[in-house]
């Protein structure tokens, strides 16, 4: 892990000085995006004027379904191209616009996918090993001379084992990734992305479809990542989680960035409420009804709830593990 001098209070204090406006400047941006638009036929899926992402922070990207979050991710990671030429984005000071996706990853920005892309017919360990970028043995001419890469391979296996341990996947090491549960795949995808020690990791709904026990551990991992100096940008629909772990929140609606701010205050923003209610007015408000309530209040309640829950969860996790152990 890189030795980024991480200080959470300092980070929060720095972010506290940032204006809570769409496109506001950050004290130390790792990613700066300008004028990205993407049209599909008639609709404009993404129309981002300016966005900066703070280095070392967990930034949440939220917005209703179809807001353009995934498309935005696709564009900055080179999996899709913007519709207009004037788009620019810089990562760690380097212009990576129009770079192909693998170059973006090599520059240190690694992503995961909303629809998990575990490599099913490969073992969990092989999945992990594929995640590492600096491998001489991946070059064609070196590959046949096995002594030139076996040493490095050993190091990588160690590193992979360490990460698998951390992501509670170590027992699955030799299993095919296709046999993992949905949540475990999410974990694997994250762990795999971390094999290359990325400067920034972009997670597209890492918590979607994951059971509460795993969610809890995933959240822990994400915070852990930040604490080790990795910048995290993640998409999430569950407001509880966003509130819980992010340092900064960016809200997208209909392709545009409509609000930005600290997790506690951004939900009070009228633009955000409009965005969510606007797109959900004909549906059962359900969970979204909480949007109308006082988010700070909610956060406090949650804080206490969580402490109680965490104990219960640990028991639950234990129970689940035991059950799984018996199954195998």
């Amino acid at each position, binding site marked *: 892990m890189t030795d980024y001098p991480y200080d959470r209070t300092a980070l929060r204090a720095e972010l506290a000085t940032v204006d809570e406006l769409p496109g506001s400047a950050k004290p130390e941006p790792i990613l700066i995006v300008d004028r990205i638009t993407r049209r599909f036929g008639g609709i404009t899926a993404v129309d981002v004027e300016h966005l900066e992402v703070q280095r070392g922070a967990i930034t949440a990207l939220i917005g209703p379904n179809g807001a353009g979050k995934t498309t935005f991710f696709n564009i900055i*990671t*080179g*999996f899709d191209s913007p519709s207009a030429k004037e788009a620019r984005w810089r990562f760690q000071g380097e212009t990576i616009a129009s770079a*192909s*996706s*693998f*170059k973006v*990853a*090599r520059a240190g920005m*690694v*992503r*995961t*996918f909303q629809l998990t*892309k*575990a*490599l*099913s*017919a*490969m073992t969990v360990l*092989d999945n992990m*090993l*594929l*995640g590492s*970028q600096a*491998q001489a*043995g*991946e*070059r*064609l001419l*070196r*590959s*046949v001379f*096995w002594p030139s*890469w076996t040493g490095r*391979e050993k190091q990588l296996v160690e590193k992979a084992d360490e990460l698998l341990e951390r992501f509670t996947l170590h027992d699955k090491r030799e299993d*095919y990734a*296709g*046999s993992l549960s949905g949540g475990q795949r999410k974990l694997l995808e994250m762990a*795999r*992305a971390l*094999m*290359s020690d990325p400067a920034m990791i972009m997670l597209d709904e890492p918590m979607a479809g994951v059971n509460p026990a795993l969610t809890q551990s995933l959240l822990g991992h994400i915070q852990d990542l930040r604490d080790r100096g990795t910048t995290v940008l993640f998409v999430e629909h569950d407001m509880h989680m966003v509130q819980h772990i992010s340092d900064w929140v960016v809200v997208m609606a209909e392709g545009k960035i409509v609000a930005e701010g600290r997790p506690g205050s951004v939900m009070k923003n009228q633009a955000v409420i409009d965005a969510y209610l606007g797109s959900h007015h004909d549906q059962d408000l359900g969970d979204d009804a909480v949007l109308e309530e006082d988010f700070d209040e909610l956060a406090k309640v949650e804080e206490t709830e969580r402490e109680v829950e965490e104990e219960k969860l640990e028991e639950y996790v234990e129970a689940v593990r035991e059950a799984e152990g018996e199954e195998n």
Partner: protein
Amino acid sequence: MDFGQFLVQLLTDAGGSLVSAVTAAFVLAAIGLNLHFGYTGLINIGQAGFMLLGAYGFAITVEYSGDFWLGLLVAIVVAIIAALILGLPTLRLRGDYFSIVTIAFAEIIRMIGDSPALQSLTGGPVGIQGFKFQGPFVALSPLPHEGTLSLGPLTAPYTGGDSWWLRIVTWGAVVIIALIALLLVKSPWGRVLRGIREDEDAVRSLGKNVNLVKMQSLIIGAVFGALGGVFYVLSGSVQADGLGRSQTFLIYTCLLLGGAATVFGPILGSLLYFVFTTILTDVVTTYVPHTVMNVTQIPQFVWILVGVGLMLLVIFRPQGILGNKRELNFIG
């Protein structure tokens, strides 16, 4: 013919097909296809096109230069060029486009070879007769240039035509190429290949130059195919129709029979395939009255069974004999 005689004939024929240079040639092409299809997930349905191209490149060069090694080099170089031309536009596209383009490529090669337009070079539908290009290969033989050798029931000349010399060289090539393939697929490079087969976007997101690796795989498999083509024609003639779509499908059958995405699958599959069709042909020839099936219908009957066999194999045992069912579930 009594049964004992028939059995001897059967075993001789089966043994002959086991060591035949043609079998070895198909093993080479199947190893190449295995890199494409088994490991990289590239559905190349023009492998016979690479064989044919290699065969023409070799035969024409040797015919005009008299140099065996130059011919081999040209066969490899034309395969590389063809793979580049094919791969550059299509490897970044969806898989089915690649498939269609490969079969189109193989057909173009075959049609050009078959066409009277280039008759002076390719011999048109008549092809290039063996005596025009086999000389330099025969001359390389350290074995006696006269006489025949019998090993068990198999008798063949030491050198020249379908000789022991040819068999030693082709099977030697099989050993070398299989070894190279083994080293390649067991390396981290091979791991990237398998990753690409599973989901190339995932592999891209991990910083791998997917298009480059796919191209490398395409080129290597194509070169193996071209070498197979060279050995295929060394005992016969170059004939465009002899390396058409049927041969590509036959290579698939061999590969799937042995087990795709395994190192020894293509070898085992080809051996079994050739032994099986030999035995089947002998049995049908001997026991089915000619009024029911005449001589031209027998090979056709065997091919029908091969087609049905390919279907059944893909449906009921896609992993073949050696493959791992879970690794080869043809996702997508």
